């Protein structure tokens, strides 16, 4: 039985060196890649998530942890691919057309990456076409859209409509977020989920991937 305490701690304190050493140590002790990912890396990140939620950690510290987690993930990922196992899930995100607000969407991306999801960030001012193209190309589990302005919010709905038109809507879940967005709006445009703040995105994605 491999103990993941030190690996968890390395993730929590954001020490990439420790994380890599502990991942290698676990592998040499015969632990499986999936076990290391789930119990060691994501195990550490769930503590980070809890502490952040409770107000005991600052966002930049969380991002340090996410970065350290990724240094471990770099070792584990090829092994997972070799055995044909899928990673946790993949997400495509972007800020909608006409809107160059980046930070909220960027934090969501960091948080998801930090929790083991594969994130493709399309950046800002992303047209509906570009979203659709990315969905076709990456075949993500989830598409996340962000808008900061009431004037750009409708472009979320437009994107969803285009996905339907192109027959891309069925295979994915759509989540939306941003200061002017609320649950009702999300429902009205046919999104599957809405997160009121960046920190809630991880839980939302977990829920959407499982459903």
């Amino acid at each position, binding site marked *: 039985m491999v103990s993941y305490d030190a690996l968890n701690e390395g993730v929590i304190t954001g020490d990439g060196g420790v994380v890599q050493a502990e991942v290698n140590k676990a592998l040499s002790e015969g632990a499986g890649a999936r076990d290391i990912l789930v119990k060691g890396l994501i195990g550490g990140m769930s503590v980070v998530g809890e502490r952040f939620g409770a*107000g005991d950690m*600052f*966002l*930049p*510290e969380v*991002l*340090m942890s996410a*970065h350290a987690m990724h240094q471990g993930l770099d070792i584990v990922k090829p092994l997972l691919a070799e055995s044909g196992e899928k990673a946790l899930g993949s997400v495509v995100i972007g800020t909608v057309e006409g809107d*160059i607000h*980046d*930070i909220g969407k*960027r*934090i969501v991306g*960091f948080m998801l990456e930090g929790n083991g999801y594969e994130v493709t960030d399309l950046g*800002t001012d992303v047209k509906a076409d570009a979203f659709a193209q990315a969905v076709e190309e990456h075949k993500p589990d989830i598409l996340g859209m962000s808008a900061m302005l009431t004037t750009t919010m409708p472009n979320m709905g437009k994107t969803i409509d285009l996905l339907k038109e192109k027959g891309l809507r069925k295979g994915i879940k759509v989540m939306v977020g941003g200061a002017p967005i609320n649950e009702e709006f999300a429902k009205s445009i046919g999104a599957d989920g809405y997160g*009121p*703040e960046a*920190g*809630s995105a991880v839980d939302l994605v977990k829920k959407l991937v499982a459903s």
Partner: protein
Amino acid sequence: MIRVNQKLNKTPYFEILSEDQVYAIHSASLEILERTGMNVHNEKALKIFGEGGAYIEGARVRIPPVMVEQALKSAPSRILVTGRYGKGKVLLERNVANYGLGTDVPNHIDPYTHKIRPTVLKDIENTGKVVQKCDNVDFTSNSGLASDVRPEMQDLYHYKVGSTYCDKPFFTSAANGENMKALIDMATVFAGSYENLRKAPSLIVYGEPVSPLALDQEATEVLLVCAEHKIPVVFPPMVQTGATGPITLAGGIAQGNAETLASLVLHQLKSPGAPFIWGPFVSQMDMKTTICTYGGPVFIKAQAALGQISRFYNIPTFGFAGCTDSIAVDAQCGIEMLWSILINALAGLNLCHDIGYLNSGLLFSLESLLLADESISAVNHFMGGIEINDETLATDLINKVGPENNFLTEEHTLRFLKKEGWYPQFLNRKNYEAWKAAGSKTVNQRLEEKVHQVIEEDVPPQISTDEMKELDKIIAQREKKLGLRD
């Protein structure tokens, strides 16, 4: 390269009076002392004043300016008070603000029922527990006036229970000279000897002249005992403008200053160099309700002026902070509490007491104490000013990050995160959904939860069993002397 001819503001800087205005107040106070004088109802004090050169006519004592100047010269400009075991520091010196509790509030908001009822010893013990947890509170006090002990013994019991779970410097009143001596004996249990206590006092004593222009028997006795034992003492008259002093703030401050200076003269004549904390209470009597206001702009203006006068004298000063006329921990409480805490810092007052006082000093609650702790934390951050240098201006970093990027993952962000930001314990910063998900709690509910958590926590006493026995012995002796026990 080097930047030259630089002048940096380490902290915000604030003044309400000009130098000439400060001098005008000082001059008026000297006139009051020489021309009108004080009535002194204490034989020992009259004798000391007379021998020191004052003009005595019955109880009336008129003090010439030279005596005031001498007292100001011999009084120390710096007083260091520490906790009973040397932990915690209250440095009373120009432009150093220290925050803590006031004494002797008759009523308490019950932490569970929220009913207002007379204070009991248990409340004072709980106050100590909470103060011990308040990082921004520098000194403690009984705060309450226990209704479940005899009035002539309250101060000694307050000191005992208030110290049980708190080892910070203790601010106390004393009923009379004999009780003051007993309090000194109690503090000596921890210090080991009078000599040690004198060198490193853990006690600060509160007494008052009676406005307008009188010194009574008992408070004066306490003042003299403190002088003799060199225990720091603050002796503020309560000038309520329009009632116990003129309605004009200038006149009220001049009179309050005169009353405080008269007390200082007596104190320094008794024991030159003994530690004295200057500073009258000057505030508005509310002529609609007759209450003595502990909030509002008149009270705030007076405090601002007192800070400047104390720097003119270069003597430690008393402040009134974190208090309110409100009867609840509500919006009024929040406004008045923060304002007075801020002005105490801006004015450079030193012994900033009365945090958590409600109802103009007649009511106390542990929730208002925690709110004051949070407010002090915010003010302390504000008083840190804005650090301006190449590293904080961060133009290299801004250039490196560039447009349409972010600063979240920069080492610079991590490095300055805690110093440059301020994080509340109780104030809400969640957005609506997150707040709702966490139970839709108001700041009052969060304060209440914390109070319950702290007072229910099983923590070890800060006093050993042997020390407690010694304290009880001193209390028993005093009760015997007063005929309260066989």
